[in-house]
């Protein structure tokens, strides 16, 4: 499978004190470890096991993920913004890979 591609939706602008909505999705097969191949052998588990969102270095939201999260993990959550800054998103794979992306927001 191709390298997982993160996609996030963050408003470009907000007023100080606003609670904004953030949508994130990363392409990933989330192999649960429960499936078997044609020979009846178990396909090893390979999932994203952790997702974190920080704003200017401080944690906003994070999630410990089990195989029961659907393929292409999707998370929608909120953040209260008081200043200009950068949201950083990180997904950690079972194999240790880290996929990340950033979005900036202007707060007036």
């Amino acid at each position, binding site marked *: 499978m191709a390298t997982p591609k993160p996609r996030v939706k963050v408003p470009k602008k907000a007023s100080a004190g606003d609670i904004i909505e953030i949508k994130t999705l990363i392409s990933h097969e989330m192999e649960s470890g*429960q499936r078997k191949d044609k020979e009846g052998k178990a396909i090893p588990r390979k999932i994203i096991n952790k997702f974190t969102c920080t704003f200017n270095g401080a*944690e906003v*939201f994070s999630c410990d993920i089990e195989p*029961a999260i*659907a393929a292409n*993990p999707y*998370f*929608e959550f909120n*953040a*209260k913004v008081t200043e200009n800054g950068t949201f950083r998103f990180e997904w950690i794979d079972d194999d240790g890979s880290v996929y990340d992306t950033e979005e900036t927001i202007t707060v007036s």
Partner: protein
Amino acid sequence: MQVSRRNLLSLSAGAAVLSLVGGRLAPAGATPAAAGEAVMAFTGGTEPQTGRITLTAPEIAENGNTVPISVNVDSPMTDADYVQSVTILAEGNPNPEVATLHFTPMSGVAVATTRIRLAETQNVIAVARMSDGSVYMDKKEVKVTIGGCGG
């Protein structure tokens, strides 16, 4: 106690429900008991109260591979009083654990949406732990037409 007709009826109905539940439990990996243990592991042994947390899930999910669910916890989300974590469990999956969401006062509100896998018709449970240590639970049954954990 005098056995009235009504008593007798409710007794036999109860027995029927019991045998039905027993029959359904046998094949699956996880059980409501395992989910109950996972709840206690999350709360540190505190019995969850009802209220404050709302779990939104479809009544019927045609495809168990991707079932949208949302949690919404009533909290001011201030530094002194906020929702720390919400764990999501599925009673009938091979493992009951689905995900644990961690909020901070910077989350603004304790609301989140994701998509989960359900192996069969079962209860989905969401348990919230507040910063003061209190815990709240909500539960929804989701009927699954095509299971999401096999293959």
